């Protein structure tokens, strides 16, 4: 068994399974989870009660359908009993619905009340089909751009500014909060706080085209010191090639179609329409949470992205095997 768990640790990335609204990792998700369980248990109780009543009614042989007796009108006592039963059931239903309404409104108020001065601001822009992530700082030199992976400090509210450029998307990290739409031309905001460190998977929750299902992201909640270290490393320009092959890889990124859409800070590749590649190797996934970021996946993605994610905006690239290896050598040092 230890061998097997070690195997699964290698094969299955740690963020698989961390995508659940009933495994809350923050105060707002906790409220939502509480409401979910309240509704679950109330609904279960109602279901069981209805089934018991139904079973009882079926077990009691109705007299009016007796074989020998003709149907007869209800007696005043029978009518009164029936009225009391139906009236009682309606009253209980109204009370239950009212309790759920109050709980729902209370939850809505509670999850909307989070805010804090000087909170980190993360601008997330939805594209078909990936997420552009910009950390906005009052000091321009401390702003940075990345994609599909958001790091946040644990125990601190973070303000997310949500936008979209093409169609409506929806930002949803179920372990941390509910959904919030990203609408072209209309900025939305959502406050998020994670109390437990971890990697939480997010997903576009508004149908946005062919690859809506493959528009995922990771939110990585870390202790503040670790978050600061990550932030500092992301502010650095791209790593400089050391070997000749890495240098050849950089030349390729700058001259091939890559440079027209992708940005590598500190190189001649300065496209703005695709995900920023400056620190590509530091990210856990490629293609917006679709594939683990391994050399083999990256190679397959570069050569033939339309097989992995049909319809996405990355074109297929044909290149010599040597060139591909050099390109991968360079991309792997972009930590």
């Amino acid at each position, binding site marked *: 068994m230890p061998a097997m768990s070690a195997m699964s640790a290698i094969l299955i990335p740690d963020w698989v399974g961390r995508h659940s609204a009933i495994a809350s990792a923050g105060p707002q998700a906790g409220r939502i989870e509480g409401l979910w369980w309240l509704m679950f248990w109330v609904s279960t109780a109602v279901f069981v009660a209805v089934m018991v009543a139904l079973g009882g009614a079926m077990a009691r042989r109705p007299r009016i359908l007796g074989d020998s007796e003709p149907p007869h009108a209800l007696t005043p006592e029978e009518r009164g009993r029936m009225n009391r039963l139906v009236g009682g059931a309606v009253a209980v239903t109204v009370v239950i619905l009212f309790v759920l309404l109050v709980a729902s409104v209370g939850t809505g108020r509670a999850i909307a009340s989070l805010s804090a001065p000087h909170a980190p601001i993360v601008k997330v822009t939805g594209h078909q089909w990936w997420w552009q992530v910009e950390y906005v700082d009052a000091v321009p030199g401390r702003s940075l751009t990345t994609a599909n992976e958001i790091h946040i400090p644990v125990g601190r509210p973070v303000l997310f500014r949500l936008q979209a450029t093409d169609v409506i998307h929806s930002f949803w990290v179920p372990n941390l909060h509910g959904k919030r739409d990203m609408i072209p*031309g209309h900025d939305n905001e959502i406050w998020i706080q994670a109390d437990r460190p971890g990697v939480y998977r997010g997903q576009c929750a508004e149908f946005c085209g062919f690859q809506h299902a493959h528009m995922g992201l990771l939110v990585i909640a870390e202790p503040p010191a670790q978050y600061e270290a990550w932030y500092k490393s992301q502010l650095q320009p791209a790593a400089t090639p050391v070997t000749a092959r890495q240098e050849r890889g950089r030349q390729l990124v700058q*001259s091939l179609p890559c440079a027209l859409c992708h940005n590598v800070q500190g190189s001649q590749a300065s496209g703005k329409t695709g995900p920023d590649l400056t620190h590509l190797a530091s990210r856990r996934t490629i293609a917006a949470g679709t594939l683990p970021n391994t050399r083999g996946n990256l190679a397959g993605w570069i050569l033939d992205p339309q097989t992995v994610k049909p319809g996405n905006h990355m074109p297929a690239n044909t290149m010599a095997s040597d060139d591909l290896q050099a390109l991968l050598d360079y991309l792997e040092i972009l930590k």
Partner: protein
Amino acid sequence: MRRGFIPGSCALLALLALISAACEREERQFRELPPMSGRQNLPVRLTDLQPGQALPSRIGGGRYEGNAFAISEGKRLYQWYNCSGCHFQGGGGIGPPLMDELWIYGGSPRNIHDTIVEGRPNGMPSFGGHVPDDQVWKITAYVRSLSEQVPKSAASGRSDHLQGPPSEQYRKLNAEGRKLETQPQKARQPG
């Protein structure tokens, strides 16, 4: 049940099936075939003037001309690759306009493709090798839609941004309207 109800509903179902068969307007090709720009021996001629008997020119290649998806992809790429930086929305500015009838280096799909790939003197960059060939063809189809040279059913029906020029389809409709109005027998009668 009224007589004729079952044959009638069968006919209606058959009609609905026929209608739904027409739903897919065109195929969207995501994985493009290898480059189409294999050089043939024929030259791409920029002029009709030839010495002696005229030889054919290498033309054609506009396989996206009637494909609405490819043209709208071309429209997106026209912005992504900053064609609009010089040609603006087709009206021209730093570079020549693309929505008029004047083509300095030819207006056939092959001419426009080669202009993008090879570049032209005095400013047009050469995009060959930097932009995948199927994307060049998509941009070509979009550029031709700017001057209303693609079928109306394939021209882009809307722009992605709130501001901006009217869509190519709308312009095409307007252009047809203009042509109608200039014909004397179609002149509008007062009242």
